[in-house]
């Protein structure tokens, strides 16, 4: 070959190689662009992707945490991603969060130094709304659950704004929180450790949610503030607090016994011979497998089931649970979410929720009759979250159907146009027959009639409920519980109240229920 030919060939070859090299850009932008996006919006997915790229051993399925907090999420992605994420987020105005009356609960504000900060109006909603970190790379609560919406992602006009380098404003959230009910709940709880949840039973809209003690989300970015908080102030007790439900659980035992046909409205429980204890009280005892379950709540030796429920007769519910087919009993517990392996799929709340449990080990609940009998009246190894107990009351007042509690009523773009309504609304069915719900509802109303003055208890609304005093053993004061409902033409509301170490449910939790239910059922 001549020099001419070779030189010509070489120039074409080199030009071609350069064109081929430019496909490198196409590769990164088109093929890897999405999985390597610099936004750590979804820390779990990002952490998983980078763990794969790093070559970390694959974690066991299911062992990964359901929700990675912001600090963990940031530590798991490479620093360049953090850098670019911080930069990107600093240019977006997050959407505003409103309550159902249109009051601002959280919004972006510009300080005098021109710095963008997130302002939170109501510390009692700190656990529910959550907060964004100082650099905005992480979030908790609804701020995390609706991060994409609040940042305006997936909205066509923000994509255009991004292309045109215009300022981006995220979408707004309107919550279901009713400020009057929320205020009533905060005042009624009065700063005692505990939680209150009020759910609109017809829709599932959460009208009030309080977890106490709380913290100031406006100070979340201050050095050392969050770690200085004691008493589990960061835990949302309403969805993550696990408490022994005490006698409120008799509601489930009653549901299971009636729904399965073990008892009917006319069934009478025979308590046998009473014994008088040293202090002069009349007590009945239910004996099972060498254990004695005392029941000092009534003098009568025979009671029908509804009255036994109203009197909260431990021996009756120990007997019902003991004599029931264990598998059936477990099935009813699981229907309501207790020890349900599909809990997060059946009850997908917008907030992180703890898993309620019927027993540490379901097999022991099957074989250990004493444990099952203790479980029957709400002790045993039961652990319940307030929101799950509210759902139980809701199912009773709703003819056996749970409308899953949700917090976001609508997502709106900055011009106020509704983008989506009730994004997390869903129904949980197959819990019990309608007749069962009506029977239990009457039993719950009977308790209000018997002890709390019936129609006068909540002005203008019919109410029902069940107290609970969860014994904790040792010298610990019991947890005070109340679950119940109140309804009139305006609203049907299901409420759960728990006061940690508050004492007797009837003394401590009932007044709180009364105040919240009154606020929820009055129109003004």
């Amino acid at each position: 070959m001549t020099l001419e030919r070779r030189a010509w060939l070489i120039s074409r070859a080199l030009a071609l190689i350069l064109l081929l090299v430019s496909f490198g850009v196409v590769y990164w932008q088109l093929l890897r662009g999405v999985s390597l996006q610099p936004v750590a919006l979804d820390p779990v997915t990002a952490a998983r992707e980078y763990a794969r790229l790093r070559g970390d051993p694959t974690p066991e399925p299911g062992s990964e945490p359901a929700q990675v907090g912001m600090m963990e999420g940031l530590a798991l992605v490479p620093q360049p991603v953090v850098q670019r994420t911080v930069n990107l987020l600093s240019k977006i105005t997050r959407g505003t969060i409103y309550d159902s009356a249109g009051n601002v609960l959280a919004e972006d504000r510009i300080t005098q130094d021109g710095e963008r900060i997130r302002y939170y109006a109501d510390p009692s909603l700190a656990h529910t709304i959550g907060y964004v970190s100082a650099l905005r790379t992480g979030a908790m609560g609804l701020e995390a659950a609706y991060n994409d919406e609040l940042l305006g992602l997936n909205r066509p006009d923000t994509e255009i704004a991004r292309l045109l380098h215009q300022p981006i404003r995220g979408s707004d959230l309107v919550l279901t929180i009713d400020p009057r009910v929320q205020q009533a709940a905060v005042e009624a709880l009065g700063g005692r450790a505990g939680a209150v949840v009020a759910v609109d039973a017809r829709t599932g809209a959460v009208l009030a949610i309080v977890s106490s003690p709380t913290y100031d989300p406006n100070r979340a970015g201050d050095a050392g503030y969050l770690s200085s908080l004691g008493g589990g102030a960061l835990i949302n007790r309403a969805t993550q607090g696990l408490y022994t439900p005490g006698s409120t659980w008799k509601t489930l035992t009653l549901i299971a016994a009636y729904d399965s046909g073990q008892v009917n409205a006319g069934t009478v429980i025979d308590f046998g011979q009473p014994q008088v204890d040293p202090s002069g009280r009349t007590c009945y005892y239910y004996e099972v497998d060498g254990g004695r379950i005392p029941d000092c709540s009534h003098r009568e030796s025979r009671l029908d089931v509804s009255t036994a429920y109203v009197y909260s007769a431990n021996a009756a519910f120990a007997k019902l649970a003991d004599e029931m087919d264990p598998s059936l009993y477990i099935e009813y517990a699981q229907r309501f979410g207790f020890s349900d392996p599909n809990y997060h799929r059946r009850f997908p709340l917008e907030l992180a929720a703890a898993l309620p449990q019927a027993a540490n080990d379901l097999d022991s609940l099957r074989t250990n009759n004493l444990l099952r009998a203790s479980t029957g009246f709400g002790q045993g190894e039961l652990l319940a979250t307030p929101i799950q107990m509210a759902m139980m009351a809701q199912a009773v007042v709703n003819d056996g159907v749970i409308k899953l509690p949700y917090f976001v009523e609508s997502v709106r773009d900055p011009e106020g146009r509704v983008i989506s309504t009730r994004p997390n609304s869903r129904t949980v069915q197959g819990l019990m027959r309608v007749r069962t719900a009506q029977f239990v509802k009457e039993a719950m109303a009977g308790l209000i009639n018997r002890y709390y003055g019936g129609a006068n208890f909540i002005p203008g609304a019919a109410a029902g409920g069940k107290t609970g005093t969860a014994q904790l053993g040792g010298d610990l004061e019991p947890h005070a519980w109340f679950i119940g409902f109140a309804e009139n033409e305006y609203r049907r509301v299901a409420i759960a109240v728990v006061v940690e170490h508050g004492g007797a449910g009837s003394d401590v939790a009932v007044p709180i229920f009364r105040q919240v239910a009154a606020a929820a059922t009055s129109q003004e």
Partner: protein
Amino acid sequence: MLVFVIGGVGFVSVAVAEQVQNGADPEPFIRPALLPVLVIAAAFLAIHAALSIRKITFEQTLLPVTALLFVIGATMIWRLRGTDGIAQQFTRGLIPGALIAIGLVAWPRSIEHLRRLSVPVGLIGLGLLILTGAFGVEDETGARLALKIGPLPPVQTSEIIKVALIVFLAWYIEHEGRAAEGRAHTLLWFRLPALRYLAPAALFVGAATLALVAMSDYGAVLILAILFVAMLYTGFETRIFVTISALGLALALLVGLILNHTWEIPATIRYRYLAFQNPWSSELMPNGITIAEGPGYQIQQAIYAIIAGGVTGAGLGLGTPYFIPLAHSDFILAAIIEEMGSAVGIAVLVLYAVIVMRIVRVALLLPREQIFERLLLVGIAVHLFSQVFIMAGGTFNLFPLTGVTLPFLSLGGVALLVNLVEIGLVLAVMQRVQQFQHERWTV
């Protein structure tokens, strides 16, 4: 023709000026932003004027394309490094480069002198390189790239050796090539040149390679290898090139294997290779997080910049190319893609391809017997190509990263100057074409 050039450069300058303004919005910033554009336009127009005076009009693409690339690079440097960066780009690169180019165009016999002085040029380049390898100034990464003589700023001698090699090889092939081919032994399909002819070139390249390895400038080694093979391929008309490349490759492999057994592979190379395989590999992150600015970190930042750019880019001054280490030199292509988009990024590569093709076109227009000039131009084209190829491929993580500069784009002293002088050489050689065509026409 002149109008076309002015139009081309002018259009580009105005476009760029507008973009620079956008970066620093208000009006008082516009005037100072226009100043560098005027300097660039003046420099390239001066070269063009020199060409026009010499009545060289047959090649109108090379200079505007070079100007366009320079302007894109200068814009990015202005954005990343501000006035200091652009001043360095001008005083150490553009202005001396343009002056030398004008000198070469105005003094056409310079090529003749260069041919006669090829051997001293080659030897001086080699000498400087060996001096650097022995006494050079170490930079923070432990590479010894620059030679500091007296009060002068440090000079990266590895840039000079590349031109020296081109000149030396062009002379060598012209002088000895035909003879070497005539005296070649045939071994099976291969043709082996006689040792007497092979030895000087092999010795030259071997010595340069050893010095560069001592300086841990592996990018330059690669460029020398590409230059060596490409020039021998073009220079010889027989398959002799195949033999020589095969021999060189075998030798390199042998040395590599021996080194691998006796010494450890240098950490730089090992980490670069790991970073190429997987920039996110945990082996590059001893503490779990890539905070250390290791090779994985650099490549990651470049990749994120490329992704952030999209097709149209974040806009000048609106992206975050300053996150990338060495964004103004090694990774300027990633910075350009982040702010101007992959459209401009790919266009830059196309422009380089155009430059390579135009330079070779000039070489092919030369008379047959001017082998030195022809090989000189081919060598220059291959040199520019290899720089772009190594750096773009490294930035896109197509192969392990080696730090060289992108011609006309990167902030660079000697490297930029050398590239501009190369363009000057091409322009000077163009006069031969003019003469040749004129003679052919009149005869």
